């Protein structure tokens, strides 16, 4: 089935998410939509899938104009989608998830679970893998959950398949397997839309590439283009991601983590026997595919871990395990959380209030339980200037600032304290290029002041640029700790759980 999008425009208020986008996808073709986060790819696909209604333009299947009022219509027309955030009901079984919305019933209105099981087995075997139809989805690993999404789409005879950032949660190996499945689908005649921002994947499977930037098509590229060409199209200008930094000058302070273990309420060991040391004046980057225990590791470092924590975290000899968040902050630990809008900021609070959010336990901003508003505002005005926070004023709710400026508020707050350790999780996620450079600079400045710095990043480039050493995590364990100049293919393998010395798994 041939898919054509013609002049699709979608606005949210004053923001134009899609600006007259036109693309065509032929049957038996993998068409790649390449663009940064926030470029408008997902919006476009939600229009195609009937989740949004386009303000202008039309969707055509085999040259017939479609009018989708909801995903049901899109599916009925033969469009299937593998969502970036899986659209599966966690407490349902695989079979129930696959049948949902497309149920067969037997006499008395009873659900025909047998038919659903058979369908799951049938489709799975076509692609050479096995899924237990009666397994409950939330108990399955993400890679398997994604396959259920694929089975779900295929069980409805989808002829056009959309993969929305499917590799974000996969290891390199799982990614390769997914690519295999996509090729198989293509050979069976499906039209495939593959949305990603990862250049390697694009060049590997794409037949055609359309690059989207700020809601508009900036051009088509051929799969033979170089990374540099693709990247330049994607960002609009060649960006140097190098951080000016000298050799580390070690200071006497240090963070020592030994045998750290975090176990959640259900008994899963999320951080498993992790040990490392960070010396004052160096940056240790914790790298790995998202969801391999990095989040839990940082939470444990600042006393936020949800589960039980065993092992030891010593900062200049002081044990941090078992202490409250407040106690750890008071030891001089600065923390930039990975999700600023949930964990770093109170969106409805003003910039000034957010700048003292974690400093309300002691003078100068609070005396005898009373807020010192004058001092607070003075401090806020100074920070806004020093950290170049673009805001209408210190009383503006922080939620109205752009991502980069929000992040600068967090960074300003954390770096304005006397630090003995800085823990920064994904410090530049969702931040504009200018702010990234600024934040990187400040992190390096902190390191150069002799503070041990732990940075968690899933972006290999950031890891290599910022780190003095890189620790790779996989399934809660340390795969290895290597110097920052380690070759990328070695780092990639480590992220898949294969240690640097190892022989490659088949």
């Amino acid at each position, binding site marked *: 089935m041939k898919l054509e999008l013609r002049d699709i425009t979608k606005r*949210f*208020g004053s*923001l134009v998410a899609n600006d007259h986008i036109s693309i065509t996808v032929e049957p038996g073709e993998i068409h790649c939509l390449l663009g*940064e*986060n*926030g470029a408008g790819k997902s919006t476009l696909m939600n229009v195609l899938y009937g989740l949004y209604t386009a303000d202008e333009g039309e969707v055509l299947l085999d040259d017939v104009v479609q009018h989708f009022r909801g995903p049901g219509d899109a599916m009925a027309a033969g469009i299937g989608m593998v969502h970036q*955030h899986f659209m599966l009901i966690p407490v349902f079984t695989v079979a129930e998830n696959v049948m949902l919305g497309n149920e067969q019933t037997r006499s008395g209105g009873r659900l025909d679970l047998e038919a659903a099981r058979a369908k799951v087995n049938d489709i799975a075997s076509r692609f050479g893998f096995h899924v237990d139809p009666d397994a409950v989805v939330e108990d399955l690993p993400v890679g398997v959950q994604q396959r259920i999404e694929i089975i779900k789409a295929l069980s409805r005879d989808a002829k056009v398949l959309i993969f929305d950032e499917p590799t974000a949660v996969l290891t390199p190996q799982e990614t390769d397997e997914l690519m295999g499945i996509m090729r198989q689908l293509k050979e069976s005649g499906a039209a495939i839309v593959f949305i990603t921002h*990862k*250049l*390697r994947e694009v060049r590997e499977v794409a037949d055609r590439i359309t690059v989207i*930037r*700020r809601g508009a098509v900036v051009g088509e590229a051929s799969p033979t283009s170089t990374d*540099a060409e693709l*990247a*330049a199209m*994607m*960002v*609009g200008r060649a*960006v*140097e*991601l*190098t951080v000016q930094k000298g050799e580390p000058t070690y200071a006497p302070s240090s963070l020592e983590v030994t045998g750290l273990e975090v176990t959640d309420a259900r008994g899963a060991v999320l951080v498993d026997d992790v040990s490392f040391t960070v010396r004052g004046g160096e940056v240790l980057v914790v790298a790995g595919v998202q969801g391999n225990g990095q989040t839990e590791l940082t939470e444990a470092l600042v006393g*936020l871990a949800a589960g039980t924590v065993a092992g030891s975290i010593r900062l200049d000899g002081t044990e941090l395990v078992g202490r*409250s*968040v*407040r106690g*750890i902050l*008071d030891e001089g630990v600065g*923390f930039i*959380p990975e999700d600023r*809008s*949930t964990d770093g*900021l*109170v969106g*409805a*609070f003003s910039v000034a209030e957010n700048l003292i959010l*974690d400093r309300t*336990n002691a003078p100068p901003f609070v005396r005898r339980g*009373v*807020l010192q508003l004058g001092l607070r505002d003075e401090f806020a005005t100074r920070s806004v200037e020093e950290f170049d926070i673009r805001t209408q004023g210190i009383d503006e*709710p922080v*939620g*109205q600032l*752009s991502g980069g400026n*929000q992040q600068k508020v967090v960074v300003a707050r954390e770096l304005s304290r006397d630090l003995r350790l800085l823990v920064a999780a994904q410090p*530049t996620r*969702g931040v*504009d*290029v200018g702010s990234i450079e600024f934040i990187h600079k400040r992190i390096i400045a902190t390191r150069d002041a002799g503070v041990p710095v732990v940075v968690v990043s899933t*972006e*290999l*480039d*950031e890891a*290599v640029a910022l780190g003095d050493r890189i620790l790779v995590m996989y399934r809660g364990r340390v795969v290895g700790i290597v110097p920052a100049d380690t070759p*990328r*293919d070695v*780092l*990639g*393998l480590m992220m898949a759980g294969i240690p640097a010395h190892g022989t*490659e798994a088949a």
Partner: protein
Amino acid sequence: MSVDDSQLGGTSVAAPQHVGDEPPVRPAGTKAPDDGDRWREALRRVTSGGWAVSLGAVVLAVLAGSVMIAVTDKGVQDASGYFFSRPQDTFSAIGSAVGGAYAALFRGAVWDFRADDFAGGIKPFMSSLNFATPLIGAGLGVALAFRAGLFNIGGRGQMLVAAAAAGWVGFGVDLPIVLHLVVAMTAGIAAGAIWSGIAGLLKAATGAHEVITTIMLNYVAFYLISYMLATPGLLQAPGSSNPKTPPMADTVIMPRLLGAQYKLNLGFVFALVAVVLVWWLLNRSRLGFAFRAVGENPDAARVAGIDVRRTTVSVMLVAGGLIGLAGTTQVLGTVTTGFSSDIDAGIGFDAITVALLGRSTPFGVLAAAILFGAFKAGGSVMQASENVPIEIVLVIQSLIVLFIAAPPLVRAVFHLPQPGARPKKRARRQPKEVAA
């Protein structure tokens, strides 16, 4: 196959960067949204409409009340029997029924235009303020919890235990004047705080939702107080078999503020003090900062070193104390001749509507409480003189809150402008602050 060196581009080439000004949108439902999140969103919706919407809601609710009065009025029913021959009769009957009822309401709530002098004329308003007194305290208790993202439906139980504690000290203990009042009030406020604190503790320790626990605690308190009222030696008046306490001692009764002819008593002053204290607490103190931070974003509060659990308990303690104040002023100021298990008189639930109407700000609560106090005062006059059952006040009150909670509905009815559709960025509205 090997992971090739250019997987993510070389150092000289762009890495995937994020250029857009929009923070990445996390689609709803990707992870089980945590409890607090949606509560806060919902509460914010309710508390962030405009004042025009509030006014519209009041007008709509009063209109609905008029319809109820009209259709149940004998005169209207008679006149509508011959509607097609003399329609004007029906309309004038409606006019006199509704007009009479609201005139009575006004006469009972604001100004008695039949009185001879100013002192008599203002009497209803004083009575309204007296009815407003417990609504202020209880409304503040609910509003404060709202601001911290907690839903305190336990007003009834908290008032009951507070009334019991204050009442017990009030009739059962011999103390000199002033000291007696201080001790009784302390006991009442503490009892309310503890009862509400149980819900806070349960939430902090086990995550039990405060909506459920406070509802359950209402009934536990009710039966507990009923038991005590029926048990000689606890709360029951000696020598009586009624489930009622003896009258309060003279040493503990709150003096009337403006002479014996007005019911308004010292409790009103305490309520006003509470308004100012809560305003100060929320806007100027560290504790209030923590309350609001936890209410707006408990995750960020936790990361910032604020102990969310302890804050939850403190919020509920303070909220319960405020509601306890309401229960205390009831038994020591208004119903001083002894009370039974209906002493809460629905104030615990009224408090929720007061807090919502007052947009959870201290001065908003004050205004809303006076409005609802006026409804109550006027409602009883309306019942006495026009035979309109006082329950109509419940209907009007609940309709006001329903309409306020759905601003689009009110705006549609009155053709007010709908606020522009915001981009899909999570629209965080301005916090609803009362500036001094």
